[in-house]
């Protein structure tokens, strides 16, 4: 400290002076090395000493600092803002310190700077001799702090503004964070879910699977992609596609699991519409055959009624006519029932136990009407006993109707349509073969692509096989095709068998 240097210059040979001087030198060195400004002020509001940092930062000289009144040393704006004079006075009169106050100051032509300051009374033998003013420039720290907060706010608002669910859980699945989309989609606030686990919020049939997903995630690789329904506050189910990843600390330990979920409601609606329109397109193809099939029994019933209206005398003939009317009507209504069953919009896509033999038989019955109009012989080999799979009956029927119609479409000039269903290990295999044109090797890769069709515009949507593919995959099965150009194609659908109600 310059003032100390000046008032107590070192004198060689004086032991006491030498000892005191040593400390003074040490302290002045420490003070001068400090990046903070340190000033001593006396009761007359005069600066007694000032360290190097202050002198340099204030762009003053030592001479015009030491001995000056503080209101001459500091710019008036600072004196006023700090209320410097009365604070120094309070320190002297009441031994009251001022600690950690914040002040901003902008010197003309320079950027605003932020300071922390403290005023600490220095007592010696009961009397307050000086007040120490500590002034620290924290502009940089404040700026960094604000930047960090801004980045944090930005990230938070990215998560909050996301239209997808973004949530994090502890490794045991307990919810930690829950964004606005999660609240909007589920109707549940963070407060309502934070003590619950993620699996708790999943629909019952998906809970075990979700739990397994989190167990896998815990081991470090996330749980990949999964579709688990979320139960909303009102108890409704929302289909959600989840992607799970892990959050690790510096030591690569999994500390949290992050799940991002996309609401599939709209997509499911779209898919349902797509399925329905494809179904209607298939119905259009079926309609001709069905009309033919229905008009035959109707015509028989009508003829029998026309005979009866002439009141024939032969009682045996009258009996025959009545029987034919009833049989005809029953046959026609059975065909219509089968058609309506297929035409009606898909039920909730809930998997139930389904007899695949019956599904294939019903589909074949509808296709048979069409086959009859184009000289296609249908040879269907189905086992006598039910073959159970887990599935959505309406969707599975759509698969086989599409495959039958596809086969019929390949045989416009007649042919043979063979269907066989057999068990192979843990799966059931349905093969549908035609003796049609076959598929060119260059096209076989693309036949399951949506909108891919070799038929003229208006004669095929190009959706039939692609829908078969997606339905079969949804049933954990597979579909493939073998074809020889000019000889025909064989489509094979494989589905996992149900044994004791459990998918194999």
């Amino acid at each position: 400290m310059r003032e100390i240097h000046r008032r107590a210059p070192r004198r060689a040979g004086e032991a006491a002076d030498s000892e005191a001087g040593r400390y003074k030198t040490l302290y002045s060195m420490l003070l001068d090395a400090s990046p903070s400004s340190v000033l001593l002020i006396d009761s007359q509001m005069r600066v007694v000493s000032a360290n190097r940092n202050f002198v340099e930062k204030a762009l003053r000289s030592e001479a015009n600092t030491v001995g000056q009144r503080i209101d001459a040393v500091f710019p008036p704006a600072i004196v006023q803002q700090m209320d410097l004079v009365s604070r120094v006075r309070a320190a002297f009169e009441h031994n009251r310190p001022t600690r950690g106050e914040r002040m901003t100051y902008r010197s003309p032509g320079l950027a605003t700077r932020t300071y922390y300051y403290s005023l600490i009374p220095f007592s010696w033998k009961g009397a307050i001799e000086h007040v120490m003013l500590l002034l620290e420039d924290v502009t940089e720290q404040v700026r960094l702090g604000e930047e960090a907060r801004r980045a944090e706010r930005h990230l938070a608002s990215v998560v909050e503004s996301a239209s997808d669910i973004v949530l994090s859980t502890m490794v045991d699945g307990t919810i930690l964070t829950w964004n606005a989309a999660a609240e909007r989609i589920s109707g549940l606030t963070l407060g309502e879910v934070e003590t619950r686990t993620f699996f708790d919020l999943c629909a019952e049939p998906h809970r075990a699977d979700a739990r397994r997903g989190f167990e896998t995630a815990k081991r470090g690789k996330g749980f990949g992609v999964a579709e688990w329904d979320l139960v909303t506050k009102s108890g409704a189910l929302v289909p959600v596609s989840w992607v799970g990843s892990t959050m690790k600390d510096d030591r690569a330990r999994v500390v949290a699991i992050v799940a991002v979920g996309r609401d599939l409601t709209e997509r499911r609606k779209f898919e349902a519409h797509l399925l329905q329109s494809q179904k209607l397109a298939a119905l259009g193809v079926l309609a001709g055959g069905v009309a033919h099939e229905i008009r035959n029994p109707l015509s028989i019933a009508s003829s029998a009624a026309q005979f009866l209206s002439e009141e024939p005398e032969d009682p045996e003939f009258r009996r025959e006519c009545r029987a034919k009317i009833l049989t005809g009507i029953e046959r026609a209504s059975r065909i219509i029932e089968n058609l309506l069953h297929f035409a009606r919009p898909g039920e909730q896509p809930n998997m139930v136990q389904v007899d695949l033999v019956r599904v294939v038989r019903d589909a074949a019955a509808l296709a048979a009407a069409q086959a009859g109009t184009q000289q296609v012989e249908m040879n269907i080999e189905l086992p006598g006993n039910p073959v159970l799979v887990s599935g959505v009956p309406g969707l599975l029927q759509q698969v086989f109707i599409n495959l039958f119609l596809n086969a019929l479409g390949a045989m416009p000039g007649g042919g043979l349509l063979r269907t066989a269903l057999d068990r192979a290990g843990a799966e059931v295999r349905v093969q549908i073969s035609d003796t049609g044109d076959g598929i060119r090797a260059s096209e076989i890769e693309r036949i399951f692509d949506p909108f891919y069709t070799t038929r003229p515009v208006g004669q095929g949507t190009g959706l039939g096989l692609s829908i078969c593919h997606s339905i079969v995959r949804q049933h954990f099965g597979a579909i493939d095709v073998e074809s020889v150009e000019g000889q025909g194609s064989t489509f094979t659908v494989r589905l996992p068998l149900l044994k004791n109600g459990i998918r194999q």
Partner: protein
Amino acid sequence: MIRNGAPVRVLIVDDEPDICWALTHILKSTGIVPVTTTSGREALRLAKSQRFHLAFIDAKLPDLDGLDLARRIREGDAAARIVLVSGYFYCDDAEVRQAMVAGLIADFVGKPILHQQVEAIAREVLSQVVSTSRVIAPVP
């Protein structure tokens, strides 16, 4: 086949036996006893072995297309009068109209069948055959 001196030979082809039953009973009032079959190929065989004045042919037979069968019958006997019977086509379908314009088929009977229409056709053929049979010797 020949009854009450009316030498009119009629063939009915429909894969549905009860349609054959109905047509047979409708023709009964005209005194005609037809030959019936549910198979297109059998019909072709029958048409080769004997000539028919009138044939009711279902448009959609499982083994043969009805119009194709009509064409082949007329190849062997250009005078045969063919009636296309169908629950598949409408009378104004392009295929039906073309076949009529080409003279391949003389009439179209839609299902459900109206008995009056069939009876009228049968009586018309009957009167033609009876009037011509006085001049020309019956076909052996």
